[in-house]
C-alpha cells in the first residue's frame, strides 16, 4: 500500500466544470434529435464538423501559444454545438465551421480561453456569420423537406421563417400550439420548443444554469411583446409568437445563462437578464435582421461588469475602483 499526500478537502461537490459541460452538451445533443428525424443525417454531420473544427482551432492556438494541450474543459465543444443550433439546416457546412473558427480564434482564445471570455463565443461567432453572410444565415428551407444530403447543397423551397414574417409586420400562418412540436422553419436547434423547455428544466435542477437570468429575460420579452406588439393582434397572440419564434427561447436557456459572461451577484443577474431581454426585443424591432438575440447578448455581455458594480453598491467613477 503506497500512500499519497494531498491537501483537503478530499471530497468535491457537484456541479464541477466538467459535469456542467457534460450537462450542457447532453441537453444540446437531445435538441438535435428532432432535426435528425426530420431532415436526415445532415444536422448530425453539421454538428460533428463544427465541434471538430472548434476543437482543432483551440488546439492550434494552444500549440502556437506554447501551452500544453490538456484534457480540455469541453467549452469549445459547447461553443461549436451552440453555433450549429443557431444555423438553418440548409446552410452550407462551411458556414457554422467558419463561425466556430471566429468564435474560438477571435472571441475566446485571445482573452485567455475559458473563464475569461468577456463575450459569449458562440454568440460572437453567429453574429459574425450573420453579418457576413446574411443571405445564407437567414435562408430557411421548407420544413417538409426530407432526407437532405449530408454534405452537398440543399435544394428545396426557400420559405421565410416565423421570425422573418413577424419582422415584416405580418401574422405567421402557423398556429402557436403547432410550434411547440418544432415543425416550423427556423434555426436548427431552436424550433423544438418543448425540448428546449425540458432541457432548461434539467439544467436548472442540476444547478448548471441559473434560472433567475432566464426568468428575468423572458419576463422582459413578455412585457414588451404584450404591450408593444409588432403585429395587429391580441396581447396573448403577440406574446406567443414573439416568445416561440426565432432563437429567443434557445438563447434564454442556453446562452444568457452562461456564468462566465453574466454578472455574479443575484440582483445583478436579474437586472442583466432583464436588460438582455429588452435588448433582444429592441433588436427585433429596429435591427436589420430577423433575429437579434446574439447581437443583444453581446451588448449585454459588455454591460455585465458594469451591472455587477452598480448592484454591489460601489458605483463610483474614481481611481480606487478601477485599479482593483
Amino acid at each position, binding site marked *: 500500500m503506497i500512500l499519497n499526500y494531498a491537501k483537503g478537502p478530499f471530497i468535491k461537490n457537484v456541479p464541477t466544470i466538467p459535469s456542467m459541460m457534460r450537462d450542457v452538451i447532453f441537453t444540446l445533443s437531445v435538441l438535435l434529435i428532432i432535426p435528425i428525424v426530420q431532415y436526415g443525417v445532415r444536422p448530425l454531420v453539421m454538428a460533428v464538423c463544427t465541434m471538430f473544427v472548434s476543437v482543432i482551432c483551440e488546439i492550434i492556438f494552444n500549440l502556437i501559444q506554447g501551452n500544453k494541450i490538456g484534457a480540455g474543459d469541453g467549452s469549445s465543444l459547447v461553443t461549436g454545438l451552440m453555433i450549429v443550433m443557431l444555423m438553418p439546416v440548409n446552410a452550407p457546412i462551411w458556414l457554422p465551421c467558419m463561425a466556430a473558427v471566429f468564435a474560438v480564434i477571435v472571441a475566446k482564445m485571445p482573452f485567455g480561453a475559458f473563464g*475569461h471570455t468577456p463575450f459569449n463565443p458562440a454568440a460572437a461567432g453567429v453574429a459574425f456569420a450573420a453579418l457576413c453572410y446574411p443571405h445564407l444565415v437567414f435562408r430557411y428551407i421548407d420544413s417538409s423537406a426530407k432526407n437532405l444530403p449530408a454534405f452537398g447543397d440543399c435544394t428545396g423551397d426557400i420559405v421565410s421563417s416565423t421570425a422573418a414574417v413577424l419582422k415584416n409586420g405580418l401574422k405567421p400562418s402557423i398556429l402557436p400550439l403547432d410550434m411547440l412540436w418544432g415543425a416550423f422553419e427556423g434555426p436548427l436547434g431552436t424550433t423544438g420548443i418543448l425540448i428546449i423547455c425540458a432541457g432548461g428544466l434539467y439544467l436548472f435542477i442540476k444547478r448548471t444554469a441559473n434560472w433567475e437570468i432566464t426568468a428575468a429575460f423572458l419576463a422582459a420579452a413578455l412585457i414588451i411583446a404584450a404591450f408593444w406588439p409588432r403585429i395587429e393582434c391580441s396581447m396573448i397572440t403577440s406574446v406567443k409568437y414573439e416568445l416561440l419564434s426565432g432563437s429567443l427561447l434557445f438563447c434564454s436557456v442556453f446562452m444568457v445563462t452562461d456564468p462566465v459572461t453574466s454578472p455574479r451577484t443575484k440582483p445583478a443577474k436579474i437586472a442583466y437578464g432583464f436588460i438582455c431581454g429588452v435588448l433582444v426585443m429592441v*433588436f427585433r424591432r429596429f435591427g436589420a435582421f430577423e433575429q437579434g438575440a446574439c*447581437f443583444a447578448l453581446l451588448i449585454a455581455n*459588455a454591460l455585465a461588469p458594469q451591472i455587477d*458594480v452598480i448592484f454591489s453598491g460601489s458605483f463610483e*467613477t474614481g*481611481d480606487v475602483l478601477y485599479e482593483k
Partner: protein
Amino acid sequence: MTNIVGMILTALAAVTVENIIFSGGIGFSRVLRAARKPKTLGMYSAFITVFSVISSVMGYYLNRLFPESELSPILRPAALAVCIALVYILAAGILKLSVPAFYKKYGQILSPAAINTVVLSMPYVIGNYRLGLWDAVGFALGTGVSFFFATVILSRALHQCKNEDMPNAFSGLPATLIYIGILSMAFAGFTGGKIF
C-alpha cells in the same frame, strides 16, 4: 414641442441604431484614452457633448454656406476644422480667465475633447442623414451620451483584457482592440451593414 420630441428621438437613435462610435468606429483612439483615466471620464464626455453640439450647429450652417462645387470637398473640411480650432481656443481662453481652478483640473482634457474625429464628423453625419437643426442638436447630444457609455464600458474592459491566463502577445491593447471589434459587431446588427 415636435422639435423637442424629434430631438429626443434622434438622440436615442444616436445611442442605439445610428451609433457612430460603435458601429461607425469613429473616435476610438479618444475613447480608449478617456477610458484609461476614469476620474475625468464624466467631464470628458460632457466636453465632447458640448463641442459636438457646437460643431453640429456650425456644420448645419456651413453646409449651406458652401455650395456643391469641384473645390467644396477640399475647402469645406478645412473651413470646418479652422472653425473648431477657433472654438477651442475661445473656450480655453474663457475657461482659463473665468474659472482658473476648473481649468487647472480639466485643462488637459479640453483639447482632446474639442479636437477629435467625433466632433469633426458631426457636420458630415448631419449632411448624410439630412437632419434639421433640432435633430442635429439631438444627434450631437446622443453621440455625447454614447461616448460616455463607450468609455464606461471600456474602462471595465481594460481590466478584463489583461489577465495572466491570456497569451502574452494579446495582453493589453491587442485584446482591447478585439474587444472593441466584437462590440462594434454587435452594434452593426442594428444597421445590418449600411451605416450611411
